[in-house]
């Protein structure tokens, strides 16, 4: 298991290969989130962020067969098309890998302490949380 909160970019291909090394793994599901259209700065709560992500991963492991998992989330200044987040989940079969990957992303959106500030033409503004994200996380209950 690897959890990293970092400013640097990541190589999704390398991370997927690194999460795929156990012989019992038959499927790896991954998700990469990108900055869409507007430059932004991401702030987070050091310490709590890593802790919150670890809890989400533990929760996923209690629900599905997760053999290995990597979550990388960037913070700091990011430009349009930059990678923000990677979730890669390795399991025995695709069903568990797909479900755990989507679950981890849905919970990251509502539980991990990150905040986006967009640099728009009218000036910088904090992104408002979306109720659709709460709804997405709620469906796993």
């Amino acid at each position: 298991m690897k959890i990293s909160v970092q400013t640097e970019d990541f190589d999704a291909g390398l991370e997927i290969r690194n999460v795929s090394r156990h012989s019992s793994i038959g499927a790896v599901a991954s998700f990469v989130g990108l900055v869409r259209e507007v430059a932004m700065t991401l702030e987070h709560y050091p310490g709590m962020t890593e802790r919150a992500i670890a809890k989400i991963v533990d929760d996923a492991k209690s629900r599905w067969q997760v053999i290995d998992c990597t979550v990388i989330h960037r913070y700091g200044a990011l430009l349009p098309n930059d990678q923000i987040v990677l979730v890669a989940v390795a399991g025995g079969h695709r069903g568990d890998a797909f479900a755990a990957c989507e679950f981890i992303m849905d919970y990251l959106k509502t539980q991990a302490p990150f905040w986006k500030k967009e640099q728009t033409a009218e000036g910088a503004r904090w992104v408002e949380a979306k109720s659709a994200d709460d709804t997405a996380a709620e469906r796993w209950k």
Partner: protein
Amino acid sequence: MKVKVLYFASVREKLGKDAEDIDLPANVATIADLRSHLRSRGGAWADALADSKLLRTAVNQDMVPPAAAIKAGDEVAFFPPVTGG
């Protein structure tokens, strides 16, 4: 009772402060009490921590509801709903 209080994102900007150590009066026992205590400073505090503002709180880096108890030495944080991912 001494606690450390942290502020993040729009809350930090409105207050012009990211962290402080506070010695709390005896009647402050929960997150809701602390929020109301800080609001009584007036000005930006009354505004940023107003009841109408949807805020999240954490105690010792776990997200908790307003009724959660706080004790000496805790790290308490106030922040807006999260927008990562």
